[in-house]
């Protein structure tokens, strides 16, 4: 008995100094997700209240208050994006709330420079706000009442075109700010509050329908976030399935970190915009809030690794971290990854600093703006470099293949035969 105890004590000491168990690491991950989606929901409800106030009594102040509520709502939501690529339940859902980029002419009036229907999207200039009925993919659509169901079930991704974004943060953003017609010059969208005014004061036409659209989109955002918050609560599907398979959960954590860092944020959202010199390639393009949406993506990636999240009310959710798990396997890999995450957050922070001091993200995309390009590309490089360290963490933990995001063949081998 005594000998056996001594051996097992020795074995523990040798194998796992200060070892954090995978189940504890996973429960931190789930707790942060739940807090993040719940914060997003709380802030979306505040946005909903601000929209209701705007529609009840339109004014410049009420529009400004709704814009502020939208900006605040983005802070927790963007931090949850680190959950997207590792978790099918999030990835399958996120298009409802954060689809981008959008052909905004689907929703409302646009400037003539926008152009009309395109080869790629014949509904790019449909203008639902101005159209109580229209033909869509050969079917007559009754849009006399603009409801959440109309947006979610008929208009969103209409004609199987992803740019037909009818719901979510960016549709609401467009309805609050309007098009940003300043190109790579200073200035965000400048929709007048009178776009929501009654009777003769109404500008842009169809103010009641525009208000109905804004209301429907905001209500839908709230209900979508209610659903996702429930998935991460105790007994929810996301929480339960991750707890049941901690190895798969750890893989999901690192997959989400790496895919958001590399292909999505560094590639699709940042590098592409710089290389196209195109302000439409800006994630929060109507509000000029892109510096924050990128920054909080970076914070969210680091949260997952450090097992720590600062809630919207200032309280902190924390617990056993992925970092401690990696450190137990290989301290050098952990150290490099922590340093990499700090570096990317710092580089994304520089973009935020410049933007808040008046040089907006779309200005940084200008073809002539070498300084802006350097600022954005430094963050891109940091994100690409940190992906290599995330990869090393995957390898030292001996995890199985990370998910290849977006591939039906690998996510779901049966899909190809359907």
């Amino acid at each position, binding site marked *: 008995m005594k000998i056996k105890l001594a051996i097992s004590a020795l074995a523990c000491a040798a194998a796992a100094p200060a070892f954090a168990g995978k189940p504890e690491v996973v429960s931190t991950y789930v707790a942060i997700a739940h807090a993040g989606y719940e914060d997003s929901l709380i802030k979306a409800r505040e946005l909903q209240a601000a929209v209701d106030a705007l529609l009840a009594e339109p004014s410049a102040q009420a529009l400004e208050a709704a814009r502020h509520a939208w900006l605040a709502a983005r802070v927790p939501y963007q931090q949850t994006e680190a959950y997207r690529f590792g978790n099918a339940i999030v990835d399958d859902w996120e298009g409802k709330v954060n689809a981008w980029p959008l052909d905004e002419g689907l929703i409302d009036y646009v400037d003539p420079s926008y152009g009309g229907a395109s080869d790629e999207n014949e509904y790019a200039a449909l203008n639902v706000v101005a159209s109580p009925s229209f033909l869509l993919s050969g079917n007559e659509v009754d849009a006399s009442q603009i409801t959440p169901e109309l947006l979610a079930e008929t208009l969103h991704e209409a004609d199987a075109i992803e740019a037909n974004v009818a719901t979510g943060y960016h549709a609401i953003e467009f309805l609050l700010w309007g098009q940003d017609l300043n190109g790579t010059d200073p200035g965000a969208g400048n929709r007048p509050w009178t776009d929501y005014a009654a009777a003769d004061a109404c500008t842009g036409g169809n103010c009641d329908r525009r208000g109905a659209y804004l209301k429907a989109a905001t209500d839908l955002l709230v209900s979508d976030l209610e659903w996702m918050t429930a998935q991460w609560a105790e007994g929810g599907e996301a929480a339960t399935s991750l707890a049941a398979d901690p190895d798969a959960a750890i893989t999901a954590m690192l997959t989400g970190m790496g895919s958001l860092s590399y292909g999505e944020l560094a590639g699709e959202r940042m590098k592409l915009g710089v290389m196209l010199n195109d302000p439409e390639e800006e994630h929060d393009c109507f509000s000029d809030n892109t510096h924050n949406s990128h920054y909080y993506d970076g914070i969210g990636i680091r949260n997952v690794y450090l097992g720590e999240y600062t809630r919207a009310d200032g309280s902190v959710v924390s617990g056993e971290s992925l970092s401690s798990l990696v450190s137990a396997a290989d301290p050098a890999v952990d150290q490099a990854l922590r340093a990499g995450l700090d570096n990317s957050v710092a580089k994304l922070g520089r973009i935020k600093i410049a933007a808040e001091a008046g040089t907006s993200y779309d200005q940084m995309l200008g073809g*002539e703006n070498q300084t802006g390009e350097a600022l954005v590309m430094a963050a891109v490089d940091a994100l690409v470099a940190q992906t290599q360290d995330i990869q090393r963490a995957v*390898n030292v933990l001996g995890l199985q293949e990370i998910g290849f*995001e977006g591939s039906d063949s690998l996510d779901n081998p049966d899909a190809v035969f359907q």
Partner: protein
Amino acid sequence: MRLALLLAFLPLPALAGVAEAVDDQILPATERFAASAGALAGAAAADCTAPALRPAYQDTFDAWMGMSHLTFGPLERDGRALTIEFWPDPRGRVARTVRGLASEADPVVGDAAGFAQVSIAGRGLMALEQLLYDEELSGYGAGDYPCRYATAIARDLAAMAEAVQAEWQDHSRLMLSAGEPGNPRYLAESEASQALYTALLGGLEFDADQRLGRPLGSFDKPRPRLAEARRSDRPLRNISLSLAALRDLAVALSDAPIPATQAAFEAAQATAGALDDPRLAGVADPAGRLKVEILQQQIRAISDAIEAEIGGALGLTAGFNSQDGD
């Protein structure tokens, strides 16, 4: 116990195929692309009208298919892969940018350094395709603006191809010294083979999901106009050439016979060869569509074979891919 320990300290066999992949597939592909792009620039200097440039454009695109899957290292730097070929282009930016430059007769085409700062939608093979094959644009004469614009694109491509070739010389040394002290990029031998393995699977995924998946669209809404480089009749040719390059890479990377992988490549290449539909326009009718769907399934089956045969044997799994994301 002792055997297990010994095995644990044996060097991993993972480096086995890196030297072969570099020597047999990658470096020859970079040389060929540099030579073709150089010839394209030379042809433009002699005669920049569309009929005169088309053969060299086709050769250059052919050569590009030998390396478009190498999305890390020199092609990742400065976003070169995207600059050389900006595709997919879901918002039609290439057509808009090329027409914008042409309608303004933007003088930037006269200055190589300035042109290198132009939006990538106005540079590279896809922009050149607009000038050489679009019905409205391609009729320009030797003294017209588009002629100078095409020359600028050709020179820009040649410069990038040359830089990529030179940098691959360095990068291949980095891969071959993976895990040695002072190598900051590849900290272990397995990291170099994992990068190639990821590129291999990423290339197959791109062929199936993008090159075929985009024109396939959905059954109710096929999108033949979204096929890659359809104006220059390249959609099917690109698939065939890409498969050939990926097959060479797979063979080089493995240090054992890979019969299942070889058979899977053969099946897909045979289907592509028999398709007789250069633009993949057949996706719009049920019979033609079925053939393209079969090809897509066969390409996905290659990935499965590679994972079993090469991934399993070398202990490799795919890493993060620059095309992860939306």
